[in-house]
C-alpha cells in the first residue's frame, strides 16, 4: 500500500465528491446558472431594487415583519432586511469567489509542478499539505483573523492559506495520472521545456477538475465566512453580510422574529444550491469533453 496510491485515490475522490449525475448535466448547469445569475444580477443591481440603504437606521421601525414598505421586514436597528440581503450578496459572493480564485491558481500551479517533477519538491509540498489538512481549520482561520484583524482581507488570506491544498492535491493526482501515460513523453521527445509542458499542456488538461471543485469550494467559503461571522470574527459591521445578519438575528429567533435569521440563511442556502448545481453541471460537461 503505497503512499502514492493512497494519495492518488484520495485526491481523485476529492475531485469526485464534486460530481453527481451523468446525463442531466446540462439541465443542472442551466438551472444552477439561472439561480446564480439571478443572485449575481440582484447583487449588481442592488441599489435599483430597493429604496433603503443597507445601513440606514430607523429607530421608529425596528423589528418589523414583512410589509409593503419593508418587503422582508426590518432588524433591530430598523434597517431594511431586503436591502441588507441584496447588498450582503455583494460582500459574500465577492469574497467567496475571490477567495476561491487565488487558491485555485496557486494550488493548480503547485499541484501541477509537484505532480510533474515529483522528487523532493513533491515530498515537501505534500508534507506541508498534510500539516495544513491535519491542522484544525477553524483554529487556523480564527488565529489568522486574530492576527490580521477582522475583515475581508484576513478572511481572504485565511481561506487561501488553507484551501490551496485541495487544489494542489487534485491537480497533482491528475497530473501524475496524465504523466504516466505517453502524453508527457511525447512532449518531451518533441523537445519542449518543462515549463511549457506543465503550464501549456498539463495544466489546461487537468484544471477542469479543479474548476469543478472550485464550485463546491465557493459554497464552502460562504459557509466559512458565515461561520466566522457567527463567532463574531467575520465581516466588520455595518457592512451587510449574510453571516453577521444571521448571527445578529439569532437572539431574536426564539422570540418569534424568525425572519432575522431565516432570511439570510435562505439566501445562503439558495446561493449554495445554485452553485452546487452549476458545479454538478460543469462536472458533467467537462467530463463529456474528456
Amino acid at each position, binding site marked *: 500500500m503505497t503512499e502514492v496510491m493512497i494519495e492518488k485515490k484520495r485526491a481523485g475522490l476529492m475531485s469526485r465528491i464534486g460530481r453527481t449525475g451523468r446525463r442531466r448535466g446540462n439541465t443542472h448547469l442551466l438551472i444552477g446558472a439561472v439561480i446564480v445569475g439571478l443572485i449575481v444580477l440582484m447583487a449588481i443591481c442592488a441599489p435599483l431594487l430597493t429604496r433603503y440603504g443597507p*445601513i440606514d*437606521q430607523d429607530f421608529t421601525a425596528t423589528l418589523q415583519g414583512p410589509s409593503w414598505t419593508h418587503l422582508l421586514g426590518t432588524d433591530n*436597528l430598523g434597517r431594511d432586511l431586503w436591502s441588507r440581503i441584496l447588498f450582503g450578496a455583494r460582500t459574500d459572493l465577492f469574497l467567496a469567489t475571490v477567495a476561491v480564485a487565488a487558491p485555485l491558481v496557486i494550488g493548480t500551479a503547485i499541484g501541477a509542478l509537484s505532480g510533474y517533477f515529483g522528487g523532493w519538491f513533491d515530498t515537501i509540498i505534500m508534507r506541508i499539505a498534510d500539516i495544513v489538512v491535519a491542522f484544525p481549520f477553524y483554529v487556523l482561520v480564527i488565529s489568522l483573523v486574530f492576527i490580521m484583524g477582522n475583515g475581508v482581507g484576513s478572511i481572504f488570506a485565511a481561506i487561501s492559506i488553507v484551501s490551496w491544498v485541495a487544489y494542489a492535491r487534485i491537480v497533482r493526482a491528475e497530473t501524475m495520472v496524465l504523466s504516466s501515460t505517453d502524453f508527457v513523453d511525447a512532449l518531451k521527445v518533441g523537445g519542449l521545456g518543462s515549463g511549457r509542458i506543465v503550464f501549456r499542456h498539463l495544466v489546461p488538461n487537468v484544471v477542469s477538475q479543479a474548476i469543478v471543485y472550485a464550485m463546491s469550494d465557493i459554497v464552502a467559503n460562504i459557509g466559512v465566512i458565515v461561520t466566522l461571522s457567527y*463567532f*463574531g*470574527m467575520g465581516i*466588520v459591521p455595518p457592512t451587510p453580510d449574510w453571516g453577521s445578519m444571521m448571527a*445578529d438575528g439569532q437572539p431574536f429567533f*426564539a*422570540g418569534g422574529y424568525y425572519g432575522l435569521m431565516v432570511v439570510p440563511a435562505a439566501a445562503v442556502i439558495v446561493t449554495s444550491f445554485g452553485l452546487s448545481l452549476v458545479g454538478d453541471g460543469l462536472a458533467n460537461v467537462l467530463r463529456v469533453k474528456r
Partner: protein
Amino acid sequence: TRASAADTPQKGGDLIMLRAEQLRTLLPSQPTDNASIWPIEEVFNTLLVPKQDGSGVAPSLATSWEQSKDGLDWTFHLRHGVKFTNGQEMTSKDVKFSIEETSKPSSPFAFINAAITKVTTPDAYTVVIHTAKPFAPLPADMAIFANSIVPYDYAGMTPEAFSKKPIGTGPFMLKSWTPGVEATFERNPNYWDKGKPYLDSITFKVVADSNTRANEVQGGQAQIDEFPAFSSITALQNSGTAKIGTYASSRVDFLSINTQKKPFDNVDVRRAIASAVDKNTLVKVVLFGHGKPAGAYMSPSSWSHDPSITGYPYDLKAAKAFLAKSPVPDGFKATITVASGNSDQQTMAQIIQASLAKLGIKITIQTLDPSAAYDAKQNGNYDMGFSYDTTDIVDPDEIIRFTGSYDGGSHGLYSFYKNKEIDSWIAKAATLNDQDARQKIYFKVEKAWNEAQPLVPLFYTPELYAYASNVHDFHPFVTGNYNLADVWMSK
C-alpha cells in the same frame, strides 16, 4: 392557601445556573473574574455583607463593629459557634490569616487592604484592624469577597490544594468541579444561619453561547441564565417558562475616548461626540428599555451619584457647534473598537457611527477578539471603545477611583484622562469619615468629569437574569453577590 404556599420557602431542589465564563479558582484572595468571585461568595463568608440595595453593610461573621476615636482602629466582634465545613470553629486567628493573605502584594486585591497596617486578635472572638490614616471605606472593604474568611493556614493545605478543596463557613460547599465545564456545590448542613440554605445544590455550568443559555432556561434544562443577551429578553418573556429579573446594579456603561490621541485631546471634540450620542435610543435598542440613560459617571445605586448631572443631551445642532469650535470643525476619521462576539457593543457602535457621520466624523468599526480588544484599550492603542464599571464593595471609593482617577487602575477607564486636581480630591475623600463631606467632594469630581467628557456615560445598566418561574427569592446584590442562601425552588 395557595398564596402562602407559594411564599413560604421550601427546602430542596437542585439549581443549575448557566454562565458564560468558567470558574478559575476558589481561593478568595486570588480571583479577578466575577465567574470565580460569585461562587466564592457562596462558599465563604466575609465579616460584613453589603446590604442588598447597596446603601451600606450589614453583619455577617462579625455581629458588630466600631471605629476608635482617632479613627485608626476598627474592632470587629465575631459571631460565636460558626463552624468551617471541616468542623473546626471559626476564630479571630482565621480572620487575621485571611486578611493578611489578601493583603499580600501577590494578591490582585491587595489594594483593597492597602490602608491596613496591622491586624490584631485580642481574643478568639475579637479582631482589631489598624489603619495608617482614618479610612472610612474599611467596613465596606471587609464585605468584599477577597476578605472572605478561610481557615488559618488553609487548614494545612497549600493554597493550590485549598482552591480545589475549599473549606469555608458559607451556605454551600464544593461537591464536584470539572474545570471549565461545571462546578457543583451542595448545601452546608451546618450553616450558621439556621434554616438556610434551602437548595440542595447549585451547579454553575458554562455555556458560552448566549442563545444556548436562553434556550436551556426556556427548555427547563437550567434555572438561571447569568447573562441573558438583552436582545433575547423578549424571547424569554414570551416563552412563559422563564422570568426576567432586573436588579439594581452598580454598572455604568461608557463610551471611552482615548484622550491621548488627537483630536480627542480637545474637549470640544469630546463634547461634540457626547452630544451626538443618542442615549435614549441606545437604551431602547440595546437594552430594550431596561436601564436608564446616564448622566453622572457614578451609578445611582451609590450615594455618591449626583442626580443633577444629566450629561450632554442628544442634540446634533449643539454637537455641530462644539465641533465648529474645535480644531477639526469639518470632522475627521476615527475607529471604534469593539470586542468580537459582543453584539451589544456592535449595535451601539453602529448607532453611534451613523450619528457621528452626520457631524462629518467617519467611524470605522474595528472588531478585535475580546482579549486583543482588551489589550488595545489597556495599551491606549485605540480611538474610542466601550467600557463599563461595576463595584465589588458598597463604598463608592473603589469605583470612583478606578474610573475617575488616572492612577486608579484603568487610567480613567482607558480614557487616559489626567487631572491632578481630581485625583487629589478623590484621595482626600477616602480619608474623611463624614459621608456628607465625602459626597460633596464626589459631586465635584463628577461635575469635573462631566465637563471634560473623557468618558461618555451611556446608561445605567440593571443586572439582568433570566430564571425559571419556579425559582424564588433570587435577589442578587448591587455588588453582584447572588446571595443564593435565600433562594428556593417550588416544585
